[in-house]
């Protein structure tokens, strides 16, 4: 069967015509905005006090000396905060204004300190988790509220489906190492057997769509050699296991240079209950590599229109625990990057680290809702209406004053 015939027949079968790239090729070229947003969920609760070190606070050395080894000021950023050594490769970006931080921030989540609920709340963007909160994520609600969004606008990357992107607006999900090799006849029959099951019909149509648009589907002339194909993929996966985070960044950059405007993925490994110095350095290095790669691969033009927000579910205890780690806490920091960022600064209403300054006398006190920073980013970067942000994208949020995050 010729490609053209296949396109027509898949239209006749009527499977998800609206989401099919074959039906709306022009839509690929149009997007609601030109700016780019990358949201990275740092899973496991990043210790903001370690990644962006408030060494100018007189309590810091006493609280954290055991973790930092003391010579924190050498990595000074602005006279008060210092950079974690693993982020040092990003210092040139900081100097250019392409890197910044918000400190002492958190979601409205308090006291329970569960990763799972904390992440759900961060991604849901709501005040609490009751009722329909887990139904969709704030990035998806943003997409629901603007016209012109297609399945190509946003990508949720990696093997895990993120609540952040879940919802009624079309979002593409993909793991960079996936592929799909099908003959045209098999594709047609696949759509037939999946037709009556909406969950499967939607997913199979999106899968074919994505694989096709990425050039992954090569239609085999002959019956494929399954054994050979299975082994080839196993080889490819070795690279993936070692460099998963860099593949995510490369893939995101490749899509954002084309029609995609939003990409989201996760970086794990921030739950540093013990031996934090070593564990957080590994995760910090991954984060630095991801930001560095996005900068390099997007190129000056697209990077100049890009903002990266790396956020975590909550912070960690101000004190070090009995195993050279920290336990689940409250306030943390957000890492921001991008050519569109007014970076080179740390946004914070610093609460202090004295015993009575701490939340519940144990955690960094949050002085601003991290959702406010995300909302102001959407306001400035995409021109989203403030009322919409405070009622629909982040229901119940008071955005407060404009922190002027974006150039």
């Amino acid at each position, binding site marked *: 069967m010729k490609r053209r015939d296949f396109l027509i027949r898949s239209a006749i079968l009527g499977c998800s015509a609206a989401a099919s790239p074959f039906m709306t090729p022009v839509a690929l070229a149009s997007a609601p905005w030109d700016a780019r947003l990358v949201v990275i969920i740092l899973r496991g609760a990043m210790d903001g006090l370690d990644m962006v070190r408030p060494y100018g606070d007189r309590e810091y050395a006493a609280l954290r000396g055991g973790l930092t080894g003391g010579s924190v000021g050498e990595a000074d950023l602005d006279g008060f905060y210092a950079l974690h050594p693993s982020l040092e490769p990003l210092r040139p970006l900081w100097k250019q204004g392409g890197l910044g931080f918000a400190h002492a921030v958190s979601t409205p989540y308090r*006291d*329970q*300190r*569960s*990763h*799972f*609920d904390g992440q759900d709340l961060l991604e849901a963007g709501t005040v609490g988790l009751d009722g329909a909160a887990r139904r969709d994520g704030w990035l998806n609600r943003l997409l629901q509220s603007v016209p012109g969004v297609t399945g190509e606008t946003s990508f949720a990357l990696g*093997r*895990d*489906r993120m609540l952040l992107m*879940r919802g009624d607006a079309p979002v*593409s*999900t*993909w*793991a960079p*190492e*996936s*592929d*799909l*090799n*099908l*003959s045209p*006849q*098999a594709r047609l*029959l*696949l759509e*037939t*057997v*999946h*037709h*009556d*099951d909406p*969950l*499967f019909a939607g*997913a*199979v149509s*999106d*899968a074919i*769509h*994505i*694989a096709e648009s990425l050039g992954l589907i090569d239609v085999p002339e002959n*019956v494929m050699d*399954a*054994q050979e*194909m*299975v*082994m080839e*993929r*196993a080889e490819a*996966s070795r690279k993936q296991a070692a460099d998963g985070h860099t593949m995510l960044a490369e893939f995101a950059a490749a899509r954002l240079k084309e029609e995609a405007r939003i990409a989201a993925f996760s970086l*794990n490994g921030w739950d540093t*209950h*013990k031996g934090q110095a070593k564990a957080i350095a590994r995760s910090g290095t991954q984060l630095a590599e991801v930001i560095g790669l996005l900068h390099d691969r997007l190129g000056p033009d697209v990077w100049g229109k890009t903002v990266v927000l790396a956020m975590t579910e909550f912070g960690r205890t101000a004190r*070090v*625990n*009995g*195993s050279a*780690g920290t*336990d*689940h806490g409250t306030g943390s920091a957000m890492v921001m990057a991008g050519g569109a960022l007014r970076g080179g600064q740390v946004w914070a209403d610093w609460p202090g680290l004295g015993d009575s300054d701490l939340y519940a006398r144990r955690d960094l006190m949050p002085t601003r809702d991290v959702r406010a920073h995300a909302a102001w980013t959407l306001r400035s970067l995409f021109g989203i209406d403030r009322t919409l942000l405070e009622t629909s994208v982040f229901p119940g949020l008071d955005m407060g004053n404009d922190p002027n995050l974006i150039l």
Partner: protein
Amino acid sequence: MVFDPALAEIRFGTGLSPRVAAPQGIDDMLRRLAGSDQMAQSYPIPRFDGQGGADIREYRDLLKARNAVRDTEAEEPARKALTAQKRKLRQGEIDMIRAQLLRGVMTEDGLRERLVWFWSDHFATAPRSQLYQHSMAAYPEQAIRPHVAGRFADMLWAAATHPVMQVYLDQQRNFGPTSVAAEKRPKKKLGLNENLAREMLELHTLGVGGGYTQADVTGLAGLLTGLNINEDTDMVVRPNYAERGPFQILGRSWGGDPKTREADIREFIEDLARNPVTLRHLARKLAVHFVADQPDEGLVEHMAAAMIGADGDLSAGYRAMLEHPVSWDEAPANVKPPFDFMVSAMRALDVHPAMLERMNPRNIQALFLLPMSLMGQSWQRPNGPDGFPEADDRWISPQGLAERIQWSMTAPQTLTTRLPDPRAFVQVALGDRAPEAVQFAAKAAETEWEGVGLILSSPAFQRR
């Protein structure tokens, strides 16, 4: 009473098989479950308190020996011995995966395998230490499998205090801040670590919203001090590290003298395991897993009442689930998780055990482990202690489904010497539940492998 043998195999077992006869009724299913564990004998997996632990200790000793002779002439032979043991552990890991697959494919007691998978996920762990990373299957073999048809209290004790769980949830770093050991060595700054206590309440028993507070978590963390692992990777309780009680947990006072800590923890776990809030949480989880993502409230209450009435006996809950009519609703319901899907596909294909027994580690990796992880289930490595997701839409993402399709099209060819005729295979795989569209696709496919692949990747087979 409603009962359907095919649905019993599909929904409550490991799938239809042309070789294994389906159970003939609920009593038959529960009799098989209460009987001897045939699959554990046919396809053994070393227990953590048996050869599994011995292999880990051997590796640890060789690691120590190598570290002791660093930069000397003795390093090379020590390194070789270590590498050989590492290879043995890796081979063992592959053998355990093979046995897990074979048990599901060959069993006449599918409910038991399903329960082992379910409870292993309820008490989810992932390797936190290189010592354990190749022996994860030894943990459920010891802590879960023997208890799936017994009392929840026994399983909770075995799983939550297990060395693998302790390492996973940092219990080996949980010390009484004013314990004898802490006072003796103040420089070590021994203190509480709440991780195990929190997950025991949030995930293993009461559930989120189960009415506990941060103070209960801290109290339980205090009670758990002293619970630890010795050098032989056995669970031990060391009064020297235990904080003196009493601890206020869930409105009652628990524990006191560190000397009786093991008995005190056991008493608390007995009580927690029989708490109606716990049993209601478990009833709902079972119903969500086996019957529907949004289970009928009547079913959940029926199961909970049965388990509460039976003082936490799990089999009473299973019987209640199986005798409730909504459990036998004919419409295909939950999406099979990737591992369950692969097992059911191999069962339908009647894959010969020798095919799996002969397969080398590279092939096991390529055929099962890599595809499973692309489908969203990194085997024995869930994202967190809450285990793998239940919601259908968490599995059927475009990429997850793409991989299920890819596997369905390719794996059967390498797992069978001769592919079945798709027209006959529809009946074998789906019984009388094959929708017309799937029967049509089986006939219309250009090749046998595509026909088989279309049947296996259809929603009718992917759901159960």
